[in-house]
């Protein structure tokens, strides 16, 4: 524990260097801006700005990208409260009571409690990261290919279960992502697959192109297809009335913040879109423990404080599986994994030992980033929200130009731009058919790792599948997968039996 604190102090030394402080500030600011823009969430924000980090050293690059991640989470809440427009999915819950508070002239209070709650949760989250990540990394050394394979399959199953849509559809998307991930060179034998003699395809499909296409361009196309009157619409920003919450407000919110932070941190460790689940769970919990549950939905300050704290804590703990095991459990961290690989850093158990300056520097920068966000979000909220005064018919072309230029600059490749446009159209169609893009993206990033783990396991076991059952950790994950598949089935059967019984 003492060693971890010493390392953290070293990390603060790294994060507080003028250069890294600048990139932390830049990341948090840009992230907030991205979060304020409807449609452009942390995934598009990180994907779009990866090229900007190419000239930086890995530590500065990841500090900046992590800043964009939690900055975007903050920014999304701002428009949820002021305008009832969630900047990203995790902010949907904040709309419920946050916007009601704004309508009652308490926008300032809601924004301030949101920033304070996030800061407290972020601070607690840092301690969790410091004390949990190193032991988890040591435990991860016991992981062989069979364990990794089972864990990754477990991740897909959980993600498919919690994306909110159909489980089967999400699974299909994950399989499509895995298939797309096989395009290019075979990671074991080096043979070309699905390349059709094209050198560009031989290099594989650029995941940034898929991410910007599916999420950025896909969202733009969805908006472009809206009726003309919606495109004309500009969102008018209300005036900020009272900025600071009273002592009573703080007293009311502090336990909600602490509960939200604990819950969010735990949820962040589990595979899936952690911030979304954490905010929903926190809201439900606050409503249950409250003496006045009827106030929820009418502008209850706890309904903002709890979910926002949970959101921030979940964002931070999502870094633990990424850094300690090298497996991202959520799409934004999947993109961060890609960014780490681009910069020549392989996350996993050895990362803490091989790149301590990066690991501890990023952790320390998160704390500094949270403080910067607190300063940014309180006085500059009206400034950020002003972007929404721009009508969509003007905003959408600007976003498209940014996406196209950003995509070209990743590899100076026209092929990537075409891939992005193709996946933009695919993203639009998928939305039309009610498919979620997140499982595809996660599978695309994890696909090659999953295949290598699968083939290595079979090589070790001389072609026997027993290896996945004989190893205890792998067996535990397989058991969890079985339960995840069984529970929805049991629910359906139970529901049918009840309805049959009711109808006689």
């Amino acid at each position, binding site marked *: 524990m003492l060693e971890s604190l010493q390392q953290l102090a070293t990390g603060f030394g790294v994060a507080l260097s003028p250069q890294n402080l600048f990139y932390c500030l830049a990341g948090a600011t840009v992230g907030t801006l991205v979060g304020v823009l409807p449609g452009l969430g942390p995934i598009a924000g990180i994907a779009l700005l990866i*090229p900007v980090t190419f000239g930086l050293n890995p530590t500065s690059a990841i500090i900046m990208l992590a800043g964009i991640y939690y900055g975007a989470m903050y920014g999304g809440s701002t428009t949820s409260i002021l305008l009832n427009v969630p900047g990203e999915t995790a902010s949907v819950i904040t709309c419920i009571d946050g916007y009601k508070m704004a309508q009652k002239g308490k926008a300032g209070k809601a924004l301030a409690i949101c920033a304070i709650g996030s800061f407290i949760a972020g601070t607690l989250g840092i301690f969790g990261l410091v004390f949990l990540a190193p032991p988890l990394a040591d435990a991860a050394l016991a992981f062989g290919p069979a364990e990794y394979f089972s864990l990754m399959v477990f991740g897909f199953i959980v993600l498919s279960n919690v994306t909110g849509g159909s489980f089967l559809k999400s699974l*299909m998307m994950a399989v499509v992502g895995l298939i797309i991930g096989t395009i290019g060179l075979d990671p074991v034998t080096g043979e070309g697959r699905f390349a059709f003699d094209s050198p560009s395809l031989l290099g594989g499909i650029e995941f940034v192109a898929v991410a910007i296409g599916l999420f950025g361009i896909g969202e733009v196309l969805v908006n472009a*297809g809206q009726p003309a009157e919606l495109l004309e619409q500009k969102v008018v920003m209300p005036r900020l009335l009272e900025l600071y919450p009273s002592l009573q407000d703080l007293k009311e919110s502090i336990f909600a913040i602490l509960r939200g932070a604990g819950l969010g941190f735990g949820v962040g460790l589990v595979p899936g879109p952690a911030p979304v689940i954490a905010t929903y769970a926190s809201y439900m919990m606050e409503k249950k423990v409250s003496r006045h549950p009827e106030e929820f939905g009418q502008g209850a300050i706890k309904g903002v404080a709890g979910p926002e704290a949970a959101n921030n804590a979940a964002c931070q703990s999502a870094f633990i599986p990424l850094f300690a095991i090298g497996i991202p459990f959520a799409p934004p961290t999947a993109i961060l994994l890609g960014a780490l690989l681009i910069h020549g850093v392989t996350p996993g158990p050895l990362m803490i030992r091989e790149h301590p300056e990066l690991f501890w520097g990023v952790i320390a920068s998160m704390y500094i980033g949270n403080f910067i966000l607190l300063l940014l979000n309180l006085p500059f909220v009206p400034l950020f929200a002003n972007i929404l005064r721009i009508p969509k018919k003007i905003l959408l072309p600007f976003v498209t130009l940014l996406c196209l*230029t950003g995509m070209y600059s990743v590899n100076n490749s026209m092929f990537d*731009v075409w891939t992005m446009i193709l996946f933009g159209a695919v993203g639009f169609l998928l939305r039309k058919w009610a498919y979620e893009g997140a499982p595809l993206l996660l599978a695309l990033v994890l696909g090659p790792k999953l295949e290598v783990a699968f*083939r290595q396991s079979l090589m070790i076991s001389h072609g026997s599948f027993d290896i996945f059952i004989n190893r205890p950790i792998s067996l535990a994950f397989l058991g969890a997968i079985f339960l995840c598949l069984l529970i929805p089935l049991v629910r359906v059967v139970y529901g049918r039996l009840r309805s049959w019984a009711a109808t006689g």
Partner: protein
Amino acid sequence: MEALKQRRTHMKLRDVLGAVVFFLFGAVTTILSVQMPIGTLRAAGSGLFPLCLGILLMALSALFIAKVFWAERGQERKNIRTVEERGSSWPVVAFVTVMALTTLLLKPVGYPLASFLLMVGLLTTLGLRRWPLSLALSLLAAVVSYLLFVYLLKIPLPKGLPGI
């Protein structure tokens, strides 16, 4: 009531159409994988993993189609955002066409002109018919993005014939 029935049929058709596309994708993957070395379980060839995935995708799609026909109505659309039903598809097609055309033009005419044309095209597609405003916004976007990417971020963008 009739409208609701029509809507349900439309949703069912949409679900089936989507699943059929996925099924075909799985089938193509399977056919192409079989043409690669499959190897054995002990020493898997490059085609084994995609072959398994292709078959799995076909199975899941078939299962989904079966579920669409047998499942209770209206269960599918839970917390998922779908495309605005009232909108039309032609602006989307036009939007994608403008993107594709300007991407084709990027190398020959260079980034500054291509980005300007992209903005004019997209603004027109979305219904901004006030030409002075449209041209001014396009010029502003082209200049700002050029300065941002080329001068500030030092990213080389296609110069094209104008050589800028």
